[in-house]
């Protein structure tokens, strides 16, 4: 928050606001300010005097660049390769455990009433209640509770259901579902800790599809380039981010499900009402003067899309590149990768489809990546003008457009019917190479030195309104 403040990327709303609808109205407005929008803090919430809400912290590419320690004008492509560069030795990050952690300065463990402890609000008008949209849920593998690697930190939607109970959605392909399944097979409660207002890189790592035995804490420490400070939860073996604003400790009640939802989700539509697990809260700890950090999610583009866009793109890139080093870049920023664009050099005829199959067989791509576009390696997948040019001038519909029916789908995608089923659309917009054929065509080459000329012009350019 300090970095955003120093960069002029933080606006504090001092005017009195109602939890509903004012907070959501402001955060929708912040999202609509576009790629340079600031974070927003509310410090005068009616009924919650003295408590604060922050939103849109990851809400723009400028904010995202600042969180990465880059120049505020870094392009999305430059930010992609910065994340990619940092994304090495993720299991080597250093963790440090501290006592008397800031997140435990204040402890509530009797007569817990979340509505009175935290400034809660309904994010979208038809949500079933107040939700945590940016909460890092920590759980351990009941069969291996001391494994840091298997300890999971994930962002799952959490619904406040009464003073001291929560509902949670962890879908079957999410890591926490493995922990839940093991605990339920044993008819044991699963301890969880819900960290709100965590270090911003940890939040992004929690939203990233890491492998089951990769530690989000170690990965965050690697990306931060410094040790990540943890502390033990007060009532369990769980490790929690020591500098969280709030930590909610509780247990998932085994073998029971409760009515949850709906919730306005990332495709821009409401999910249905479903039966989901319930968490009984045992304790709430927080800093002195905490900030409830939240994320507005609605019709794209919102903070959700910026926060996870590159953190979805880079792991896909890494996983595909391990098998196919020709790959150049991946843009999976559209609704968590529902549409994904891959750029790659092409090894042999039909190779574009091979790459699409690989996208669809990554852990994330299995359910999420349903529209897969492959373009040549010299096309920036973040430059949609170039992508559309490739589609316009390369795609032979009879050969290059393929539909694979009845595949896994993303249940929150409104097109997924029944929820969880889908199909894959592959558009191979690459230039055919041997043994595939195309007409004899010579492409127009850019004049040598034009990139440098553009840079000279940029430096000399003083727009009239500057």
């Amino acid at each position, binding site marked *: 928050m300090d970095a955003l403040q120093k960069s002029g990327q933080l606006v504090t709303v001092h005017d009195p606001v109602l939890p509903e*609808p004012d907070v959501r109205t402001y955060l929708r407005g912040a999202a609509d300010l576009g790629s340079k929008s600031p974070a927003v803090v509310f410090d005068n919430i009616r*009924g*919650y005097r003295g408590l604060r809400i922050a939103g849109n912290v990851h809400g723009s590419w400028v904010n995202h660049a600042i969180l990465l320690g880059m120049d505020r004008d870094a392009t999305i492509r430059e930010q992609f390769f910065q994340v990619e560069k940092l994304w090495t030795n993720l299991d080597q990050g250093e963790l440090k455990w501290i006592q008397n952690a800031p997140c435990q300065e204040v402890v509530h463990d009797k007569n817990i009433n979340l*509505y009175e402890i935290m400034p809660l609000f309904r994010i979208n008008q038809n949500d*079933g209640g107040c939700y945590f949209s940016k909460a890092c849920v920590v759980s351990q593998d009941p069969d291996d509770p001391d494994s840091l690697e298997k300890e999971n930190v994930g962002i799952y939607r959490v619904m406040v259901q*009464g003073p001291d109970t929560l509902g949670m959605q962890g879908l079957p392909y999410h890591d926490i579902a493995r922990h839940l399944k093991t605990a339920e097979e044993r008819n044991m409660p699963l301890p969880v800790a819900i960290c709100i207002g965590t270090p911003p890189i940890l939040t992004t790592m929690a939203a990233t599809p890491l492998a089951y035995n990769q530690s989000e804490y170690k990965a965050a420490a690697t990306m931060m380039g410094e040790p990540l400070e943890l502390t033990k939860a007060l009532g369990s073996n769980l490790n929690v981010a020591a500098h969280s604003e709030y930590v909610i400790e509780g247990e998932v009640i085994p073998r029971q499900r409760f009515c949850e939802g709906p919730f306005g989700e990332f495709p821009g539509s*409401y999910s249905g009402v479903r039966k989901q697990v319930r968490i009984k809260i045992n304790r709430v700890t927080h800093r002195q003067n905490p900030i409830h950090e939240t994320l507005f999610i609605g019709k794209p583009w919102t903070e959700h899309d910026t926060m996870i866009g590159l953190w979805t793109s880079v792991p896909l890139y890494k996983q595909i590149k391990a098998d196919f080093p020709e790959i150049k870049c991946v843009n999976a920023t559209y609704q968590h990768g529902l549409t994904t664009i891959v750029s790659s050099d092409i090894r042999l005829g039909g190779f574009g489809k091979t790459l699409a199959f690989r996208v669809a067989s990554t852990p994330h791509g299995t359910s999420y990546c349903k529209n897969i576009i492959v373009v040549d390696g010299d096309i920036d997948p973040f430059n949609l003008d170039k992508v559309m040019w490739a589609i316009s001038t390369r795609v032979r519909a009879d050969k290059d457009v393929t539909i694979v029916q009845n595949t896994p789908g993303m249940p929150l995608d409104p097109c997924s019917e029944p929820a969880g089923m889908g199909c894959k659309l592959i558009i191979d917009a690459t230039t055919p190479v041997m043994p595939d054929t195309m007409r004899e065509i010579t492409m127009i080459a850019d004049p040598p030195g034009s990139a440098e000329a553009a840079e000279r012009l940029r430096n000399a350019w003083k727009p009239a309104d500057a």
Partner: protein
Amino acid sequence: MMCLRCLKDTAAKIAEAPDGSKEWEMYYCERCNYSWRSTEEPEITVLEKRDPEFQLGNLDLDTLQMLNPIPPLRK
């Protein structure tokens, strides 16, 4: 009191503004888990103005889809 969503007599006041301002009260239904605040828009707090698409009055909650099935117990 009646839940504004599932229309059963299973709701109650569960909180009020913690700063003592009496700005609002919070209500919660222990059956369908819906909650609402007294200061929300009429589309939320006035039954006649609520969107029928999101009402659960005619729904048997036991029929809701369960995305995470309960596994068999280990032997």
